[in-house]
């Protein structure tokens, strides 16, 4: 709305704020969750020596996130993008004396750099085509460059719009932790729980999804980029969910769930249902922040114990946490009536109706994903709150009010936010001024009348039943017959091993990429820095001068007669020169 510009060489760079309906919905989510987390932190961190530092960081994070969503050009977007990355780095390593935390924030930083490299390449490509970074100009003129191509090699050229979209999506893959770049998010749980809720569930990791929606005018022009988005999203949705089934750290289970749900949002963007993607982003922000904060409440109550094998039967000791967790879990799996139900169902509806390349694959992925979601969610829920109470947890009691109030305040939108908002946000034209997408009939193949009708319509589909089936299965596995999971993991041992090792992604990265780069940089350091620059150029020069001087020094023998001889010889030479010069024999 407000723009301040100045001339830079021949191109105009301007900064400004853009507040449209897309930004507003993001601002509501960011500010609300941020407020809840601020309140929660008062209780959660009050004994921590870094109490004040923590508030500085999360406030700065909120600023960075707001400047990301309110930007009206790519430069500001990139600034906000990097700033949230920095705050995420600082907060993951908040307990900087813990080695695992330092490793985790280093990992998050490096993997985000890989994504950001793609993002800045995409921005540079758009800048070189349009000569400006303003959203408005680029989006209005995107159609004029659909026939432009970029020559990558003599035999291979690619539509420049597709390339730009793929590069921008590469940035989103880093920030939103999509499949090959997802490894940093589970490790980021080394940070304090409030930031897991704020940054690594509700806001920062959804920046990639927000960007996809913001760039919809570009993505809509490139079906191949959309298919790529769809495939990456569906692989992420299903494969990271499976990992959540074998984890025993309460926060890591929720982190894998976050990855899987981010995959859902990306899938929705891939089938052009940006509004459904954003709607899921919003509901997910509420119920996932709720789940994280509830997990934090359990962790505080058990004096910083995170292993779910040491929990169990806590429902009588932590009644408020129990009820709010139940609400969050039901919302997460999409139980009818809860907020997650509306968003996930609209999303799956869009995938099933889509005709984009690979949309069938994506449909089966998200359907199986629903089952997996309800399995790991209620596995966690039953293991923590049901079953026998452990002896060491007899004296557990609910934490203080500042922790419980945010749980209750987040439980309310997790339950009810779907009812009033699904109509305007997903099916009506609330986002019409900020997102370009086909009409809701084309996306969903469904005529929306009211929320209740949507609910009954969904009951005729498979999604709800799959989710409820998942609850029953996990009740069977983790409450009634508790020895079955053990037997299953032994029967399917190879598969279980793959899951426990997280598909060997960490091994792959450590042993191939990290080792390769370590060797490369070591050899550059040894050969380039030490051998050539230090030893040859810097020290080598000094050494050679020294050696030359020590030779020359030998001339100074200290014997008077040597000096005298030199004087005589010099004189003789000089005289000879004078004589020969006067004869004209030398110059």
């Amino acid at each position: 709305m407000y723009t301040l510009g100045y001339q830079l060489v021949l191109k105009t760079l301007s900064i400004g704020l853009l507040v449209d309906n897309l930004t507003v919905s993001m601002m509501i989510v960011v500010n609300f969750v941020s407020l809840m987390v601020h309140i929660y932190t008062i209780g959660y961190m009050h004994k921590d020596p870094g109490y004040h530092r923590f508030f500085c960081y999360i406030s700065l994070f909120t600023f960075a996130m707001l400047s990301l969503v309110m930007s009206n050009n790519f430069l500001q977007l990139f600034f906000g993008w990097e700033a949230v990355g920095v705050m995420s780095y600082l907060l993951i390593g908040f307990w900087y004396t813990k080695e695992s935390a330092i490793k985790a924030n280093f990992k998050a930083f490096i993997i985000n750099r890989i994504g950001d490299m793609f993002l800045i390449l995409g921005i540079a490509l758009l800048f070189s085509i349009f000569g400006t970074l303003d959203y408005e100009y680029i989006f209005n003129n995107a159609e004029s460059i659909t026939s432009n191509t970029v020559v990558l090699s003599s035999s291979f050229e690619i539509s420049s719009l597709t390339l730009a979209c793929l590069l921008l999506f590469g940035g989103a893959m880093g920030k939103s932790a999509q499949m090959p770049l997802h490894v940093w998010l589970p490790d980021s749980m080394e940070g304090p729980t409030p930031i897991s809720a704020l940054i690594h569930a509700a806001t920062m990791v959804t920046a990639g999804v927000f960007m996809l929606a913001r760039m919809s005018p570009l993505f809509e022009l490139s079906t191949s980029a959309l298919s790529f988005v769809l495939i990456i999203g569906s692989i992420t949705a299903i494969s990271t969910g499976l990992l959540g089934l074998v984890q025993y750290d309460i926060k890591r289970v929720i982190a894998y769930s976050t990855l899987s749900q981010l995959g859902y949002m990306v899938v929705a963007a891939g089938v052009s249902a940006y509004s459904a993607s954003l709607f899921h982003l919003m509901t997910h922000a509420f119920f996932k922040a709720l789940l994280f904060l509830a997990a934090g409440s359990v962790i505080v109550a058990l004096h910083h114990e995170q292993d779910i094998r040491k929990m169990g039967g806590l429902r009588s000791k932590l009644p408020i946490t129990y009820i709010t967790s139940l609400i969050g879990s039901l919302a997460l799996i999409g139980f009818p009536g809860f907020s997650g139900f509306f968003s996930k169902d609209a999303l799956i509806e869009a995938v099933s109706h889509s005709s984009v390349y690979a949309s069938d694959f994506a449909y089966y992925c998200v359907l199986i994903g629903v089952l997996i979601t309800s399995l790991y969610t209620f596995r966690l829920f039953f293991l923590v709150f049901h079953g026998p109470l452990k002896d060491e947890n007899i004296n557990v009691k609910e934490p203080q009010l500042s922790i419980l109030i945010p749980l209750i305040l987040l439980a309310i939108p997790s339950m009810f936010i779907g009812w009033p908002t699904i109509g305007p946000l997903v099916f009506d034209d609330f986002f019409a001024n900020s997102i370009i997408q086909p009409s809701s009939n084309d996306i969903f193949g469904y005529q929306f009348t009211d929320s209740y009708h949507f609910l009954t319509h969904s009951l005729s589909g498979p999604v709800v039943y799959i989710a409820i089936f998942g609850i029953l299965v996990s009740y069977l596995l983790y409450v009634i017959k508790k020895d079955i999971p053990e037997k299953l993991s032994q029967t399917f041992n190879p598969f279980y091993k793959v899951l426990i090792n997280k598909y060997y992604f960490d091994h792959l990265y450590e042993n191939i990429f990290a080792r390769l780069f370590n060797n490369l940089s070591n050899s550059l350091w040894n050969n380039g820095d030490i051998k050539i620059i230090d030893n040859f150029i810097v020290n080598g020069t000094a050494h050679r001068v020294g050696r030359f001087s020590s030779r020359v020094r030998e001339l100074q023998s200290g014997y008077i007669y040597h000096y005298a001889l030199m004087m005589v010889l010099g004189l003789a030479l000089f005289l000879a020169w004078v004589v020969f010069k006067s004869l004209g024999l030398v110059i």
Partner: protein
Amino acid sequence: MLTLQSYLSLAAIIFAIGIIGIVINRKNIIIVMMCTELLLISVNFNFIAFSYFNQDIAGQIFVFFILTVAAAEAAIGLAILVALYRNKKSIDVQELRTLRN
């Protein structure tokens, strides 16, 4: 009849003896001083020879100055020598090489 050439040749021979004496002397610093005197004497020889053959008295006057300077120089040189001997207990040229390197 003695010519100018014979005088100059004698002076050159004395000069050469002086220089060789300085350069190949490996032993005594007094010999160095004596050789310096030889150099001065050869120069004086030239002055006197030219003055006689050119009928110019200025050369002979100049010789007196040189003799005075040579005497003063010998006195100072010997004084330095005594001081050196007191400090070093030696006047050996080979050992006096603190200027080395």
